[in-house]
């Protein structure tokens, strides 16, 4: 039997793109945005729909996402994967695509997503709806924010983390967003602004919560061998791992330890890397507490120490570790399932095309996706040609 680490370096991301972002206005559907992003990513790769034989998607707006997108784009895939783990889905798709390509089950994988939630509803459109009895919703938590607020309150209780530590995360994201022309919120934001903004679910204010935007994204993958003949600098898949333990937040035993504490170490082992080897980090920051939890669980600092780790602008431009260099879900874009954008920004940083926010000499990138209520966690490590 083959071993998973043999996937290291065997596949690559060869095209990435966003759709139009922000508020696209009426008359444009989620499927339009997915199609637009997918078309642009294929253009970026120098490939066409005729090359695509593996299709990967998830949507909060339409069922059978790959089947729906396949018809729209005229793609008739021989490998189809609508893995639905919330916002982390697209990182899971990358791992699945890597295995499928290596196994010969497809050659060119297209991973695509689109959401017009801001224009359509003005609020979050969740992919997590179901028709089962709930042991949480009768008590009216404001989900998802209250789930993350409960985790933040517990982290503060156990480790002395403060609201100021959380605000550091929001301010760092805004400072990166100010370097990204595509970011939705680029105005000045101070620690005091965050602390003084409207409380939503204690201890999280509206500035501790992600944006509600429209947007789509897409990633094209193929074998590393074929990638050499394509137009973009190769972004190699080095390793990836998935973990989930619970769906409702009341079923996460320790609210300060997420399944990222499994996905992170597994991904690093498969990639043959350690946290210290990572040059640029993209974390799914639906809420400020996410960034603290994931920095700890992925091994960038010890458990309980992320508040101090991010203080003094340490993850902002010019800090010790570049985190969420596009501005993240907090300031750049969050259409409901943000994961695809961690991959797009990782690829752009490794290709050296991130403009004013480019991290000099970035060779290894970590992309991390979250789904549900800290439920599904997926970690992907990517590297430039020097890592192979």
């Amino acid at each position, binding site marked *: 039997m083959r071993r998973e680490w043999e996937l290291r370096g065997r596949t690559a991301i060869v095209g990435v793109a966003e759709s139009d972002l922000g508020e696209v206005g009426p008359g444009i559907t989620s499927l339009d945005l997915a199609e637009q992003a997918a078309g642009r990513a294929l253009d970026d790769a120098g490939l066409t729909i005729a090359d695509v034989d593996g299709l990967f998607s998830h949507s909060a707006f339409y069922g059978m996402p790959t089947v729906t997108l396949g018809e729209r784009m005229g793609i008739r895939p021989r490998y189809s994967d609508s893995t639905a783990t919330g916002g982390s889905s697209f990182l899971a798709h990358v791992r699945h695509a890597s295995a499928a390509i290596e196994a010969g089950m497809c050659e060119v994988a297209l991973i695509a997503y689109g959401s017009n939630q801001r224009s359509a509803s003005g609020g979050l459109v969740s992919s997590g709806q179901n028709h089962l009895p709930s*042991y949480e919703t009768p008590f009216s938590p404001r989900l998802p924010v209250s789930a993350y607020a409960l985790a933040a309150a517990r982290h503060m209780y156990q480790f002395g983390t403060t609201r100021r530590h959380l605000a550091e995360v929001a301010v760092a994201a805004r400072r990166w967003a100010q370097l990204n022309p595509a970011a939705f919120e680029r105005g000045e934001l101070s620690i005091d602004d965050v602390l003084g903004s409207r*409380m*939503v679910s204690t201890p999280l204010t509206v500035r501790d919560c992600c944006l509600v935007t429209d947007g789509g994204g897409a990633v094209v993958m193929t074998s590393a061998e074929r990638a050499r003949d394509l137009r973009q600098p190769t972004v190699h898949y080095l390793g990836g791992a998935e973990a989930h333990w619970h769906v409702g937040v009341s079923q996460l035993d320790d609210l300060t330890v997420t399944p990222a504490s499994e996905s992170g170490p597994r991904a690093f082992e498969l990639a043959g890397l350690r946290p210290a080897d990572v040059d640029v980090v993209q974390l799914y920051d639906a809420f400020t507490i996410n960034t603290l939890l994931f920095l700890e669980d992925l091994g960038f600092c010890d458990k309980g120490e992320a508040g101090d780790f991010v203080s003094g602008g340490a993850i902002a431009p010019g800090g010790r570790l570049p985190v969420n260099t596009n501005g993240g879900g907090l300031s750049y874009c969050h259409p409901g399932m943000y994961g695809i954008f961690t991959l797009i920004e990782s690829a752009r940083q490794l290709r050296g095309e991130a403009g004013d926010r480019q991290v000099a000499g970035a060779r290894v990138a970590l992309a991390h996706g979250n789904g549900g209520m800290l439920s599904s966690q997926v970690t992907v490590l990517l590297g430039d040609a020097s890592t192979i």
Partner: protein
Amino acid sequence: MSSEVPGHAVVLPAHVGGPHAAYEALLENGVLGFQACSACRSAIFPPRLRCSACGADELTWRASAGRGTIYSTTVIAPRGREAYAVVLVDLDEGYRLMSRVEDHAVAIGARVAAELSPRGGSTLPFFVPEGGDR
């Protein structure tokens, strides 16, 4: 041996359906029910068919004393409406519930007790500070 299983034994009302229906039927009868595994002694919630700790097909319904400790809390203040606290409670029998607590200022670590109250056509467990007004 049975004393090692958390909670105390409870007889289900007749003719209940699946695990969720059983939970609701117990609440209607004034019992805060949970399940315990006869094989591994784990307390299990929410209700299900088999033990999610060991996989055994040996879950039995138990009655909780309804006493526990606040694990975490968040206060939600909807615009134009009264604020309320949503809490996670660790019950003494070894399982966790999401609920509401009367006192917004209740802190992590505080002791609380369940009160079963009708809400929206069903009966639900809400919590009050232990020793408080019951």
